[in-house]
């Protein structure tokens, strides 16, 4: 039995335990771990997630029971204070003495705090442990202005955390002339700075802090250039200091600037003592990242279980997370200009900067920097690491092949088998492909089997691409199936359900699926049924197949209340209707807001109140606005020729006509529209799924525009149409979209994927190239004729009404956990934890 004592229970310590347990013959090892922190090892990399609701327990890498189950003795809250190398024993703060055969030091690093006078004042924090974050969280509400010393990876993360904690006025102070001096170059840094300032951070570079001002409590910072900055809270994130104090005490070799010196085997100057993670100094270098620490854990675990393995350095590529701007640097981003060629792409408008360094012969990628768009990070990193030969025009790896050529060597399949895909867990391309070949054909299955993509998740898109590529190479046809319960695509099911005349989710499942359904196939099929038959969506047992918002005919919000959005066709509303909304909102204590869709949203309704609220609205002539459904939302209008001196036609009347025609229409995703009275386009019709703009001769019809996160302009489908033809084209267009789009695909994405693009679509809709135009029109007419306001049906139907209560056994009572906070003259949902 070999006894191994591990000092420190941080990320690498845990990984070491996991790895050595997996490698060792059971019963041959005894492991004892000492941790200084009060809790078992947690995910420090995602520490900031603590502020967005993760608890300390959520962040645990494994619960304390795990150690017990593996037979590992874990002493928490008990730092080792002394190592006796002659006796091979360690002594802890609480008085425990343990002997060891081998000792593994995984003591990590502490935040480096520069010797600035005043760092001990109240309101000054570091950013390393859960306790640090707890203190920051408790202090932040008393502060208005925040500052962070250090504009590196961690400093920026800390600054974003202060912003998210509500400190709208947050400053980053960097000593160097640029941000992230170790990862990115000057141009990259100035672009990053501009992007961060858009997020609300204020960045000060070339600033040396000389003192922290205030009596007991911080009030500001003093700089070397005699300027100063008021601040109520300060986080110091100026680098890390390896925890080598124990090693020093027992006479192990340490570096000038800290760190426990190790060789390729990760042995310290005492061959029975190893050091791994952020405390280890290999080849003059401290690796302040988790992936090299895990690799070190792997090397030592292998050696102690009898397999030779060496640590030969590690790539310091990183991708910054959480900050709201993509930043990545990989390989060597700073190769001197005489040893490489650089290709730089910059778009200051979009805030994108990309630079790659390649060998002078143009064959290999050496490293680079990506800011604003780091989607290609994994691919480029692997191309550099694996010395993949670059395409003839190396700029293609930055800009994509632009000559209509097929993807060159840079695709995932171009990578060699040894290429590391998941660097946190060190999983190779071969391991992932083999797992797929062994039958693990989904991302979840591959994650479980290989552990790839389970840590930071950054490689998940590449893993997905590999799964698809491997399946394809095996000759497997990748069908776009709904989920594990249906081996059909949405389009196939749409046709099957229509042909078989099926009306409920259960019938469809019995005919074409297997198992019991899930949150993916249920709403997709419920939506198909609604698009086909336009029956009451809560009937025939389909209520529980509807997405939660559809099931309660309202959008659920923070805290569990709902919003109420009556339809206001074209945005036209009478003073009397406004009074009704005002009365209802006051009576039921609802927050009111004008939406971006030209109507009024009332928020904060208890589920019990929904039928009562709608009863009053319906009595006053309102209808459901379907704000909760994948359905027609709003048809915005501009005021048009009735009042506007430029208006060509009456855009409001036409918008109302369109909205009333398609109200309640359900589709693969929501549909929005707008009508503008002239080319000045005040209704923003060109950002809608279908938009109409008045011309001298009629209407121009635009389709497939989108707002949202990837905005896209609509494209002209047909011009100068009369009102009737325009509606016929819209009928055909919408029905064709409804029949053929994948679930949750907006019209813009649908068009982008449509073979033949807008030309094809125009042929189908305008020239009737498929000969289905008449059918599409009559199908649409059937849906239009079948329209009923679903809220009216609920209000009039006691059985449906009954479902709108919180407690089944106390239907009168409201959810007592719902609470609100005061905001200006109204209320808002209480912040969630």
């Amino acid at each position, binding site marked *: 039995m070999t006894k191994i004592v591990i000092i420190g229970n941080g990320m690498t310590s845990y990984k070491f335990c996991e790895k050595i347990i997996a490698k060792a013959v059971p019963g041959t090892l005894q492991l004892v771990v000492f941790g200084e922190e009060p809790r078992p090892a947690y*995910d420090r990399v995602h520490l900031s997630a603590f502020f967005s*609701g*993760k*608890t300390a*327990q*959520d*962040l*645990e890498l494994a619960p304390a029971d795990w150690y017990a189950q593996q037979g590992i003795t874990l002493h928490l809250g008990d730092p080792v204070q002394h190592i006796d190398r002659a006796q091979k024993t360690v002594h802890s703060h609480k008085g425990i003495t343990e002997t060891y055969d081998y000792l593994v030091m995984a003591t990590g690093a502490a935040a480096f705090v520069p010797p600035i006078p005043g760092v001990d004042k109240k309101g000054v924090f570091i950013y390393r442990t859960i306790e640090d974050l707890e203190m920051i969280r408790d202090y932040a509400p008393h502060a208005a202005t925040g500052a962070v010393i250090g504009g590196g990876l961690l400093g920026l993360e800390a600054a974003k955390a202060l912003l998210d904690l509500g400190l709208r006025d947050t400053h980053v102070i960097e000593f160097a002339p640029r941000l992230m001096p170790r990862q990115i170059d000057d141009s990259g840094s100035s672009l990053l700075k501009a992007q961060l300032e858009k997020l609300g951070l204020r960045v000060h570079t070339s600033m040396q802090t000389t003192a922290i001002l205030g009596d007991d409590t911080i009030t500001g910072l003093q700089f070397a250039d005699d300027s100063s900055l008021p601040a109520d809270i300060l986080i110091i994130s100026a680098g890390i200091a390896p925890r080598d104090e124990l090693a020093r005490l027992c006479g192990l070799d340490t570096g000038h600037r800290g760190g426990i010196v190790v060789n390729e085997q990760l042995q310290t100057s005492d061959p029975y003592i190893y050091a791994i993670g952020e405390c280890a100094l290999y080849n003059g270098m401290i690796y302040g990242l988790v992936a090299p620490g895990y690799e070190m854990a792997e090397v030592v675990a292998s050696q102690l279980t009898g397999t030779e393995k060496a640590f030969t350095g590690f790539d310091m590529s990183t991708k910054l997370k959480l900050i709201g701007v993509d930043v990545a640097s990989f390989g060597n981003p700073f190769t001197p200009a005489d040893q490489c060629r650089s290709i730089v792409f910059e778009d200051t408008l979009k805030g994108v900067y990309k630079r790659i360094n390649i060998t002078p012969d143009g064959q290999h990628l050496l490293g680079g920097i990506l800011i604003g768009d780091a989607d290609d990070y994994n691919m480029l990193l692997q191309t550099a690491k694996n010395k993949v030969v670059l395409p003839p025009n190396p700029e293609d790896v930055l800009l994509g092949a632009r000559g209509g050529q097929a993807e060159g060597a840079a695709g995932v399949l171009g990578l060699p088998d040894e290429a590391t895909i998941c660097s946190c867990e060190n999983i190779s391309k071969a391991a992932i492909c083999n797992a797929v070949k062994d039958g693990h054909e989904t991302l979840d299955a591959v994650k479980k089997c290989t552990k790839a993509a*389970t840590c930071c998740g950054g490689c998940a898109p590449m893993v997905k691409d590999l799964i698809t590529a491997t399946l394809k190479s095996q000759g497997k046809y990748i069908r776009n199936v709904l989920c*594990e*319960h249906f081996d059909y695509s949405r389009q196939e099911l749409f046709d099957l359900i229509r042909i078989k005349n099926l009306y409920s989710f*259960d019938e469809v*499942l019995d005919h074409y699926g297997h*198992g*019991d*359904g*899930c*949150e993916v*196939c*249920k*709403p997709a099929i419920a939506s198909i049924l609604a698009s086909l038959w336009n029956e009451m969506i809560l009937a025939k*047992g389909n*209520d*529980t*197949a509807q*997405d*939660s*918002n559809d*099931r*309660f005919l309202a959008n*659920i919000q*923070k*805290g*569990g209340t709902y919003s109420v959005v009556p339809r206001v066709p074209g945005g036209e509303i009478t003073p009397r209707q406004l009074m009704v909304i005002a009365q209802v909102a006051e009576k039921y204590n609802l927050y009111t807001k004008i939406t971006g869709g030209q109507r009024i949203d009332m928020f904060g309704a208890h589920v019990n109140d929904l039928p009562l609220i709608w009863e009053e609205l319906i009595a006053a002539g309102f209808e459901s606005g379907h704000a909760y459904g994948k359905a027609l939302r709003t048809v915005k209008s501009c005021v048009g020729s009735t009042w506007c001196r430029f208006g060509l036609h009456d855009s409001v009347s036409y918008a109302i006509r369109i909205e009333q025609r398609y109200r309640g229409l359900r589709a693969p995703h929501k549909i929005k529209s707008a009508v503008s009275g002239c080319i000045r386009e005040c209704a923003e019709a060109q950002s809608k799924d279908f938009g109409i703009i008045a011309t001298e001769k009629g209407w121009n019809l635009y389709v497939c525009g989108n707002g949202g996160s990837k905005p896209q302009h609509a494209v002209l489908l047909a011009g100068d149409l009369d009102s009737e033809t325009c509606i016929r084209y819209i009928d055909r267009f919408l029905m064709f979209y409804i029949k053929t789009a994948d679930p949750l695909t907006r019209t813009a994405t649908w068009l982008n994927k449509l073979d033949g693009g807008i030309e094809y679509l125009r042929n189908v809709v305008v020239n009737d190239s498929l000969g289905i135009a008449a059918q599409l029109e009559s199908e649409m007419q059937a849906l239009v004729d079948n329209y009923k306001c679903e809220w009216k049906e609920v209000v009039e139907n006691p059985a449906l009404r009954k*479902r709108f209560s*919180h*407690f*089944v*056994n*106390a239907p009168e*009572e409201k*959810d007592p*956990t*719902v609470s609100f906070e005061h905001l200006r003259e109204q209320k808002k949902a209480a912040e*969630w*934890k």
Partner: protein
Amino acid sequence: MSLSNTATITWFFACKVEDVPANGGVCVKYRDEQIALFHFSRRGEWYATQNLCPHRRQMALSRGMIGTQGGEPKVACPFHKKSFSLADGRCLSDDTECSLTTYPVKVEEDRVYIGIVNGSGHAAVMA
């Protein structure tokens, strides 16, 4: 599912079978607690879990959608779609998310009862 031998279960009457939508859930009030009760009628099964979703601490699971994943019955929270096993409460979408407390359910003559261990009003924790 197994209950420890020493535990005694107190059954309380939650509602009638017809009060729960087929293949859906309702929220049951038990003293100061909220319990989500599900009728997985397609499988002829009943389940009960805490109503609180541990992710953002929302009283919402009874309004979630039920289904299966690899044959295992589960509920997906309406807020962010994290799903939890109805059988043992563990989170199926995220290894780090907390588990749900689950409760035994029995149906007698159209009446649905939820079991509370030791009458403590707390977690009939099932392994």
